[in-house]
């Protein structure tokens, strides 16, 4: 009986150590995740990048008195959405470097924002476009940094889908600025860059492995491609004729389609990640897991001893 008890004890001791090690490892990952960016942070920053160009598009539409789909109302609502995205980002735990980058983006946005609240003026449009251009370029970099920090495999494709949405709104903003009669010596270079960038993103997404970009997403992307072709025909034309309402409709259509693609992409990529990379546990929850696991080992050890 005594012998049996010693054997049982010697069997349970290694189990105790293994389980303790497992608990410590789990705690390590959970604690790490709490300092990492979440997928939600990527979405918020990606939305901010997209919204900035969307606001610029609405600014031009209001300025040239185009009433299609009430751009003045959209302008006000999108400004509010932008603020909300920043507020949501403020409450998130990220590492110091990312936190500083987010503050930098927020500050630079708040420097631009008052211009959007004034009555649109043609004389201000070019300067505003250049400021938004600089803002979105940095915004994209930060979104990419956040996506890398999540540690989620394939999250880069989510950022790519968001970038496609941003490029579509940028194309619309540039085109509408020209339609308003604002002369920009960089217009052709910018349009060329948007068209090339869009093609590059398309190729990357369409050639991505199916585990990261599914067949359904690829089919949807191909469908939106027709809208992009139509838009680029309009934007590259030198005829001096403009179709602002059609451009606004196309921009919204592409935006909505890409938002839906983005949702699908997020579900696909972020829904497949392994548990310890998901930001499911904060320090309190991690501590709880540790107690449950160690408690169980300890209790079992005590009973058996």
């Amino acid at each position, binding site marked *: 009986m005594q012998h049996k008890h010693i054997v049982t004890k010697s069997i349970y001791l290694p189990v105790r150590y293994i389980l303790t090690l497992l608990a410590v490892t789990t705690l390590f990952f959970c604690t790490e995740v709490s300092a990492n960016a979440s997928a939600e942070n990527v979405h918020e920053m990606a939305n901010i990048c997209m919204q900035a160009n969307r606001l610029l598009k609405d600014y031009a539409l209001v300025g*040239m*008195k*185009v*009433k*299609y*789909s009430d751009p003045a109302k959209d302008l006000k609502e999108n400004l509010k959405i932008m603020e909300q995205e920043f507020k949501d980002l403020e409450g998130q735990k990220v590492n110091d470097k990312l936190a500083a980058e987010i503050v930098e983006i927020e500050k630079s946005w708040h420097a631009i924002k008052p211009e959007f609240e004034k009555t649109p003026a043609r004389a201000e449009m070019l300067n505003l476009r250049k400021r938004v251009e600089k803002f979105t370029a940095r915004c994209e970099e930060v979104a990419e940094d956040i996506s890398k920090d999540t540690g989620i495999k394939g999250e880069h494709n989510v950022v790519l889908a968001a970038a496609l949405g941003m490029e579509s709104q940028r194309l619309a903003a540039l085109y509408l600025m020209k*339609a*308003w*009669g604002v002369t920009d010596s960089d217009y052709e270079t910018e349009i060329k860059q948007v068209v090339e960038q869009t093609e590059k993103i398309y190729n990357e997404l369409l050639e991505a492995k199916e585990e990261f970009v599914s067949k359904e997403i690829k089919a949807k992307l191909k469908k939106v491609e*027709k*809208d992009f*072709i*139509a838009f*680029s*025909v*309009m934007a590259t*034309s030198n*005829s*001096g*004729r*403009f*179709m*602002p*309402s*059609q*451009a606004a*409709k196309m921009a919204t259509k592409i935006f909505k389609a890409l938002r839906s693609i983005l949702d699908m992409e997020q579900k696909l990529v972020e829904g497949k990640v392994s548990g310890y990379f998901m930001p499911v546990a904060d320090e309190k929850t991690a501590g709880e897991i540790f107690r449950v696991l160690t408690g169980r080992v300890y209790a079992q050890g005590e009973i058996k001893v």
Partner: protein
Amino acid sequence: MKTVRYLTAEIILGIVCALYVVPAFAADQRHDLLTVEAAENIKFSSQAITKAYFYKQQGIRQDRATEDLKKSLVLLKKDLIIIQDGLQNASKEEKNIVVYLEYTLDELLDIVDKPYSKDNGALMIDYSESLLEGADFIVGQHADKQDAEERLLVSVEHLLFFLERINKFYIAYQAGFDDYNNVVQLKRAVKDFETTLAKINAYTEYTEGSLASRNKINKFWPVAKEFFVDIEKGSLPVIVLASVEKLEKELKVLENFHHGKAMNN
């Protein structure tokens, strides 16, 4: 003897080549001509459709506007098929333009019969501009710019197109589309009409009948122009429509004249 044989062989080879190449060249030219005609028709229809749409919506000569709208849509679809049929050897850019035309026509057909709204009206204006944009590109790709008679025929067709365009922007303005772009485009169309009319005025070989028509156009244009450019002050959609029809009637005489000349060339 050898030289004679070589010569005979070269002649036979030349004939064989000519038999293959000449019909192919002729077919290419025929295809170009058909494509240009179809694209020019689309330019005209694109303006006529939206003009009729707004006259119908505003209840001005409604029955006639409804009939014009229907006819113009049928013609537009037919002309687009002609352009699609000739796409085999087209460049990537031209294929993209045809995608753009198809896309725009689909969007237009989606709203043309829906109840009128400000948003749909705005889109109808833009779709007509998009169809024009695409058709203009196709004309540029295929037009034979070397033929003087054909150029004059195209100029008269442009005058007809400008009138439809002016009338479209005028009636759209009356429907409340008073934005910057529409006023600019109307005034530009008036200016383009005058530049093109100068080319017709430089022509010296008109017959008596066609010369009389040209004179009538020159006499009436300054009067009509005042109605058109007065868009921001006046509201005379019936007078504008009647003026356009009067000018178009005389322009069709010139169109027939130049059509005959271009065919006999």
